[in-house]
């Protein structure tokens, strides 16, 4: 029930954002992530963004996976 999926913010109006998830647009509330900006990925849970995806951390983890076992 705690499912949350990454979605891209396309536009923001007040506390409402238009997000894109796998090519489909949804309305989402950014009340819980007031720092969210257009171009951010947010984790969407029951219509609310609950966190801004830290893209730098994500890339870092992916790079670590790729480098694993090569050294």
């Amino acid at each position, binding site marked *: *029930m*705690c*499912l*949350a*999926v*990454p979605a*891209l913010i396309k536009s923001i109006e007040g506390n409402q954002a238009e997000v894109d*998830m*796998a090519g489909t647009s949804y*309305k989402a*509330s950014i*009340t*819980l*992530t*007031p720092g969210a900006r257009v171009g951010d*990925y947010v*984790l969407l*849970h*029951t*219509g*609310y963004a*609950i*966190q801004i*995806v*830290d*893209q730098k*951390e*994500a890339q*870092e*983890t*992916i790079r670590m*996976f*790729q480098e*694993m*076992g090569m050294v």
Partner: protein
Amino acid sequence: MKFVDEFRNSQSGKKLIDRIVQRSKKPARLMEFCGGHTVAIFKYGIRQLLPPNIEMLSGPGCPVCVTATEDLDRVIALSRLPGITTATFGDLLKIPSSRSSLQEARAEGSDIRVVYSTLDALDIARKNPDRPVVFVGIGFETTAPTIAASILQAEAEGLKNYYVISLHKLTPPVTKVLLDSGEIRLDGIVCPGHVSTIIGSQAWDFIPQNYSIACAVSGFEPLDILYCVSLLVEQIESSQPKVEIAYPRAVRPEGNRQALKLMEQVFEVCPANWRGIGTLPGSGLRIRNEFAAFDAERAFDIRVEEPPKEPAGCLCGAILRGVATPLDCKLFGAACTPEQPVGPCMVSSEGTCAAYYHFGGGHG
């Protein structure tokens, strides 16, 4: 999908498994708290990929499954009151309570709407100003802030017909009770990812400190979970338990301060009744006095005449405590299937019995 597909790469998965197999020497019993993790672990066959000295147990992390029968009875009694519209997440619809489910109440004429979000419930309230609309507030710390936000929104708009029945539950207190009970011995905990997005990884610091059990917060993709297990293995092998974050793109030590602020503004901590575990102090959330006007418990006279009746033969309570598996239940797969479920662990998509049924038991 970005930030999803990258965490499903099978080559990286193999490397992570190699690393786990190489490093893991000691017997290790790991518990995943969260039902979302249970589903992912079964779906990707992770139990079978791990070496035989690593045993994985499922914990109490399905909010629907841990809702006590008494509380469900009250929700259903509420939904049967004349003139009321009940809005609920779909997960709850088919859960059997003592005498019926919400789905049966709906078939018998109650106005019960399945919503995806409290935003939809607010919409129903706006469009039906003459009808009280009650949202069934079920969930852990991940969901509670969204429900707090809906109450604040209703207040800001002056909506007079929106109510919440708050059955929210808090995850660190129940984890503590499970560890204190002495019923299970654990070496490591796969801490819940999206709960920790809100409460922060530091909420789990008491586990390594007080119980010397390894902890790592995990995401929900297969690589996230394997990475989490590899961190737990390192901690266990080096006998240095701590809390690590295997999901740094979503989880920070301090959590989401804004979400915590709204949650604390609307709710206060109270005892909560957990299926199979009992009433635990400090493990639930109720609506504060300032927001009493939105509290369904105070606004309506909810009466349940008969005492609660647990489904006969169902082991959900023991399964939620990690002391039994669905294979210990005589009804599993015979009298109890997803089509004809007896207990909540078979009904909920994140229930352990449903995961065993759909994907098989695996080892451990």
